[in-house]
């Protein structure tokens, strides 16, 4: 198993009581696997709202955005990025 530490940003912060979510996933899991498991891990939002927001969010390490087919990073550290609104 690999322990994912997922940092929350923007509207995703409202889905959960803390500013990160921890999820354990099997070795070799991809971003797509995390995306599928994630909505059930939030403790504050109704499941439909969580699913909608996760569907239109991206995942990233500190260095770059990830594709759904990418393996999860070895250190387990990444972030979920809901639709952005900078500037």
């Amino acid at each position: 198993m690999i322990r994912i530490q997922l940092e929350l940003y923007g509207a995703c912060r409202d889905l959960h009581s803390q500013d990160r979510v921890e999820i354990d996933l099997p070795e070799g899991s991809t971003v797509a696997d995390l995306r599928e498991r994630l909505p059930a891990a939030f403790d504050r939002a109704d499941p439909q709202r969580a699913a909608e927001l996760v569907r239109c969010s991206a995942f990233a390490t500190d260095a770059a955005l990830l594709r759904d087919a990418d393996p999860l990073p070895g250190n387990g550290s990444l972030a979920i990025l809901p639709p952005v609104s900078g500037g």
Partner: protein
Amino acid sequence: MEDFMHAAVCPAGQRRPDPQRALAFVSDPGFGGICLFVGRIRNHNLGRSVEGISYDIHPRLAENLFRQFGEEIRAELGSSVRLFVEHACGRLGVDDIAVVVAAGTPHRDEAFRACRALIEAVKHRAPIWKQEHYVDGSSAWSEGCSLCGHVHSGHG
């Protein structure tokens, strides 16, 4: 070789995005044109009175992506360029500066194009989230641009 780009996230209360610093950074004796954009907090949005905005930023990724945007713009321009971007993070009030972007180039058309491209990338592709605080006491995260279509290869 000195870096052609300055990219930073400025935590509120510590450091503000600074137009003067931007102009100084992108200047060069070989450059005739500098274009600068300043984004400030307006007192209204979509018909509602705004009293402030909180910016949430993934600072490490933001600085890495700012730099990636800069490399893309430099490659696209095919000319020498100096670029600057600073974005405020945290709670800001009306009139506060949210973002400063600048480009210095030999000629003015390139400066306008580079500055515009950089602010568009910051607005649409950077890990930055805006929560508006209204005069009536309520708050809301702004509608945004999904990054799902912006994943580039070779950086994962």
